């Protein structure tokens, strides 16, 4: 732990020294979120305090060090719905990566990074995700931990005023070290973004190179019409362990995206999802053992000072038994410089 602190201060100090050499200050930042979640799933209640610190240190215009960790507790009754509450804590390193921005079309990443399969894993940390629960198909393409250890190329292959073509290609090695787990895999993603329409579509592919090699595919869709405060997102993913999709719509109660009233801070969210078990399911898939249908309905309220309240109700239908799922979350997003100093 002391070494981590030493490393943190070395990086922070180094970047602050670089500050004077660049037009914009290379001040490292500490960001992330603190959240508290409460869940009742099929009558079993649990509470989850979470802190997710994000550290970002630019080193000049081409180098960047990024890291995100996750420390969370899990407090629940010992026998599910009866017995005293007890809890334990987990810690996980989501990413610790060095990025080299080689040119306008290529960024080279080395280290531990979020597996870029579809969009949920990379783009929807808890302070952005509209619903507390991750989609049922989330484990598809993100095994074993949502993170990969290795290298990645990514960037904007073609940038035009009306469309962008983006890509990622990565390779990850098997890692079984606790808190740093990753699967052996190679994969990639391409996406087409039409900024003026607020539309993005893309596809992902992964070759999972362990437990018997397997192909995993996925597609995604995101649409934010510029004039209406509506967000529509969807993903489909397929693996030998199963396939499924989720479709989510979120609407701020306002006439336009930029309206700022007490009512416009309210967001109504709905999500439907279906999962169909595959021909070769294994426990390592972390997927349901039966087909599942689920819908969720939620209300989010964006308070001032980067605080958000979430509440949602979901109903899950499966041959293993139907269940009601209630979620509540309060999340605070923070951001501040990680090193003192001013800007000339």
């Amino acid at each position, binding site marked *: 732990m002391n070494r981590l602190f030493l490393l943190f201060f070395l990086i922070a100090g180094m970047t602050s020294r670089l500050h004077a050499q660049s037009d914009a200050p290379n001040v490292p930042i500490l960001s992330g979120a603190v959240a508290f979640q409460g869940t009742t799933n099929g009558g079993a209640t649990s509470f989850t305090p979470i802190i997710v610190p994000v550290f970002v240190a*630019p080193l000049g215009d081409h180098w960047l060090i990024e890291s995100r960790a996750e420390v969370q507790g899990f407090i629940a009754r010992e026998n599910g719905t009866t017995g005293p509450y007890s809890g334990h804590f987990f810690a996980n390193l989501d990413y610790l990566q060095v990025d080299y921005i080689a040119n306008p079309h290529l960024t080279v990443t080395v280290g531990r990074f979020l597996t870029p399969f579809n969009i949920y894993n990379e783009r929807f940390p808890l302070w952005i995700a509209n619903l507390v629960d991750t989609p049922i198909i989330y484990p598809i393409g993100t095994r074993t931990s949502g993170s990969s250890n290795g290298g990645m190329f990514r960037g904007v292959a073609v940038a035009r005023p009306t469309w962008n073509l983006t890509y990622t290609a990565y390779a990850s090695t098997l890692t079984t070290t606790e808190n740093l787990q990753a699967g052996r895999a190679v994969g990639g993603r391409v996406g087409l973004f039409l900024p003026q329409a607020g539309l993005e579509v893309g596809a992902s592919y992964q070759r999972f190179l362990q437990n018997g090699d397997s192909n995993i595919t996925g597609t995604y869709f995101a649409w934010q019409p510029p004039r209406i405060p509506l967000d529509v997102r969807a993903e489909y993913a397929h693996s030998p362990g199963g396939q499924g999709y989720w479709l989510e719509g979120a609407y701020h109660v306002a006439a336009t995206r930029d309206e700022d009233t007490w009512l416009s801070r309210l967001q109504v969210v709905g999500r439907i999802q279906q999962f169909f078990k595959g021909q070769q399911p294994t426990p390592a898939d972390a997927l349901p053992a039966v087909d599942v249908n689920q819908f969720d309905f939620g209300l989010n309220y964006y308070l001032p000072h980067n605080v958000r309240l979430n509440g949602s109700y979901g109903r899950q239908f499966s041959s293993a038994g139907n269940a009601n799922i209630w979620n509540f979350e309060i999340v605070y997003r923070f951001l501040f410089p990680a090193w003192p100093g001013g800007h000339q």
Partner: protein
Amino acid sequence: MRVLFLTLLLILLFGHSLKVFATPQTATQTPKGPKTTANKSTANKNTASDPGEQKFKENCGRCHNPPDSLSPREVKAVVQHMRVRAMLSAEDEQLILKYLAP
């Protein structure tokens, strides 16, 4: 006399604090774009005059609201982080950087 002295002392302290914190105060002011009413009204018509504002809305606004406040000291790290994470083009990155830290 004591009141006058204390008043002067307070004025001096206040003035000194302004001088000492002049840079951070400038730095911690809310970015013009995401917070100003003018920008919001123009954005309603989707005719943002600042191309950086337009890029901010098109890219960053897809996932999150503008931050309540963002210091120019933090902007470079934030925008570079988002360039890698959200696949911003180099041109968009520069426009957003200028918009958030003019």
